[in-house]
């Protein structure tokens, strides 16, 4: 019994202690992946805060943005112009969603809005592939992609810059939405539409702003993931990875999305590398979901979520 325990607990810890540089590499790899999870999760949080809607289409928005970007570049548009154009497309999309989906459904149950986003998800997937085709595409926006050594740790420029860009974006957005009055307006809109209207918050504007920002976030996430693993249909599925991040961090918390993404990114890498061999690998595939399940049992509002108040 104690042998088994020491095998599971002590063995991997000894491995960690015996090669700190490699451990550092693993952690950094986890942080990079985690920043990308955070970025996707952030798109969800923004929309959830503003409209109480779980936007099922966030993953499709990532795919759509990446497809549009690659598609434009394939037409010979230079990178910077393609980036700007794609951003414009995402903003136009936000206006369209507000006008066609959200406005007619104002004051409806959240579940109805949720179902509308499922429809939006399929529309975006289909529309994107109809415009740009369904083949796996290589995305190269000119980020450097070389490996180098720092203090005995091997690092990759692409991953590093992806993580850095994600970190900057996440920080700016966190400040933007937590510290400004738009943060308060967002929470107000999420809490009570009628009351928000009565104190002069224009729902339309808030929604367009939020969906535009979510669209830009989706674009950045699409670029990062696309540069890593190519632009393909499976991009839409990273939404599934964002779900445990949200459960961990709390659906309505920007810092929560960041912390949740990092915890899951680092946790699954460490689990995979050190504990994976003991169970035959693939820990990376289920770690996030098991962690999320545990959180649902212990702290359903997440690490930073607003406490769920229910009067009995």
């Amino acid at each position, binding site marked *: 019994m104690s042998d088994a325990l020491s095998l599971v607990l002590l063995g991997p810890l000894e491995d960690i202690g015996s090669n700190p540089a490699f451990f550092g590499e693993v952690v950094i790899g986890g942080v990079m992946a985690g920043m990308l999870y955070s970025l996707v999760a952030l798109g969800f949080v923004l929309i959830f805060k503003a409209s109480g809607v779980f936007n099922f289409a966030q993953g499709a928005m990532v795919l759509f943005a990446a497809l549009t970007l690659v598609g434009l570049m394939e037409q010979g548009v230079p990178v910077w112009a393609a980036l700007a154009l794609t951003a414009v497309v995402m903003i136009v999309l936000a206006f369209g969603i507000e006008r066609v989906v959200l406005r007619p459904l104002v004051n409806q149950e959240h579940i109805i809005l949720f179902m509308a986003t499922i429809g939006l998800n399929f529309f975006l997937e289909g529309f994107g592939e109809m415009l740009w085709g369904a083949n796996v595409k290589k995305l190269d926006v000119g980020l450097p992609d070389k490996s180098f050594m720092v203090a005995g740790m091997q690092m990759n420029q692409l991953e590093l810059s992806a993580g850095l860009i994600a970190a900057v974006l996440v920080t700016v957005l966190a400040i*933007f939405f937590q*510290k400004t009055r738009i943060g308060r307006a967002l*929470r*107000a809109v999420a809490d009570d539409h*009628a*009351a928000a*209207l009565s*104190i002069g918050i224009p729902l339309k504007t808030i929604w367009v702003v939020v969906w535009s920002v979510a669209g830009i976030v989706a674009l950045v996430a699409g670029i990062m993931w696309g540069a890593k693993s190519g632009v393909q249909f499976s991009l839409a599925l990273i939404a599934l990875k964002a779900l445990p991040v949200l459960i961990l961090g709390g659906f309505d918390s920007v810092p929560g999305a960041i912390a949740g993404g990092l915890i899951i990114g680092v946790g699954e890498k460490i689990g995979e590398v050190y504990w994976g061999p003991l169970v035959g690998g693939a820990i990376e595939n289920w770690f996030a979901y098991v962690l999320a399940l545990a959180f649902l049992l212990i702290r359903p509002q997440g690490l930073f979520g607003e406490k769920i*108040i229910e*009067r009995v």
Partner: protein
Amino acid sequence: MTGAGGARPLLEVEGVSVRFGALNALTGVSLAIGRGEIVAIIGPNGAGKTTLINVISGFYHPYEGRIAFEGRDRTNLRPPDVAALGVARTFQNVALFKGMSVLDNIMTGRLLKMRGSFLLDALWWGPARRQELQHREAAERIIDFLEIQAIRKTPAGKLPYGLQKRVELARALAAEPTLLLLDEPMAGMNVEEKEDMCRFILDVNGEFGTTIALIEHDMGVVMDISHRVAVLDYGRKIADGTPDEVRKNQAVLDAYLGVAHE
């Protein structure tokens, strides 16, 4: 007061009708509210009182008739635009931001008073923070005024109903409205809470000169605090006058005592 529109009333509702499908919620209702008045809107359940408040605050739009505020036509404005004109309201069933603290609820009420672009807000620390402090002071004054210091950090959703109503009033006051619309501010309150609420309403009117229109069922309260009473029944206005006049009005007595219609 600037006196824009001269001697015209602050709010003029003229021949307003609202329909929900086949139901006539309001039929040709006219009501003028002068600056500094406290006007009570009373009537049996389903008389159209809340509908009238909703029309004034832009939540419903009438299919005929017009609404003028400070002498200008404002019939088809949306709620945020009406709020921007200086009209604040509370709701019959309390519409607070339940997850937010009392203080945040009140600060949200000052959103229209805050200026500057969202972007500058995020980047330009100095002025943004100074503005925040300034509004925080205003919010604290309202907290003192309504005697809710003890609960300022409590999430609004956790408060008992009577206090929620008071916080909702605080949020409405935070906008420093010209016209305050209160939909049953005393519903579900005990006697003591009602007395407090009456005092606050009179103080708001007396100290800030805020014009107030309120819906209330407690006749004692209505007769005590209002300068004028308008009575609705089946979507029509059947009386409008001082509390004494309305008390003696035969149509009002009939409506309340249940004389058969037609």
